[in-house]
């Protein structure tokens, strides 16, 4: 059984928010999981969400994404994003179905390790419009840094706000049984 503890959550209110950040993340867990229910206000289709760790803006990130969508015949395509952030997948925008939010789950295994960090992404950008694609993506990322992850910043690559009612939940997971850390 996996034991997860809710560390913190962020809810976006009226007016939206350009970015959201968890800071001072405790180092007391084995893994972190961030679950996001979100939408952006972009008018340019779906917006990819970027992840920046410990305010690091350097060339230290790598993400490889595999995705498929609901309109094009492409069954799967992979690409590598530019290396100044992690690319977590797509979120619906203003020209997607109204009030429908996308979902992204991000796992940071061994986030306090002194080795480079691996990151796993699963995302669904939902839409019911025939003219727009809903994108399902999985991605693997790395952050070349030996420091424990203490902050996570989320923001869209189109520079648009997260919509009101976007919610982000940060969980901690302990390895072992009964929620107790085991070696």
């Amino acid at each position, binding site marked *: 059984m996996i034991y997860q503890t809710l560390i913190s959550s*962020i809810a976006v209110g009226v007016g939206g928010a350009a*970015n959201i*950040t*968890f*800071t001072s993340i*405790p180092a007391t867990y084995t893994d972190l999981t961030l679950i996001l229910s979100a939408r952006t206000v972009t008018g*340019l289709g779906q917006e990819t969400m970027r992840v920046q760790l410990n305010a690091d803006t350097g060339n230290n990130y790598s993400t490889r994404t595999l995705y498929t969508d609901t309109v094009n015949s492409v069954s799967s395509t992979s690409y590598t994003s530019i290396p100044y952030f992690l690319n977590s997948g797509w979120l619906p925008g203003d020209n997607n179905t109204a009030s429908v939010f996308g979902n992204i789950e991000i796992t940071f295994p061994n986030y306090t390790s002194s080795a480079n960090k691996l990151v796993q992404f699963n995302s669904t950008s939902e839409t019911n419009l025939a003219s727009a694609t809903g994108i399902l993506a999985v991605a693997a990322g790395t952050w070349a840094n030996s420091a424990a992850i203490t902050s996570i910043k989320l923001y869209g690559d*189109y*520079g648009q706000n997260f919509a009101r009612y976007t919610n982000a939940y940060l969980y901690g997971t302990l390895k072992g049984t009964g929620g107790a850390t085991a070696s």
Partner: protein
Amino acid sequence: MAPTKIIHNCETGVTEEVELTASEIAELETAREQAETDQANREAAEAARATLKVSAKAKLLAGQPLTEAEADLLLG
């Protein structure tokens, strides 16, 4: 109202909504302009691809030679 960001301190449990600085707003504007440029480029590329596909199909049906770009598109 200026654009804002939300910062949550997991240690204290305090959530702050902070107005963006001038440089952060400038970064957002740059990202938005880049997104519009990228979108226009994607749409132009898709339109060109669709035109090329129609041309390639017509030439195939008429038994005419294809251009290299048309052949590349068909062979995918």
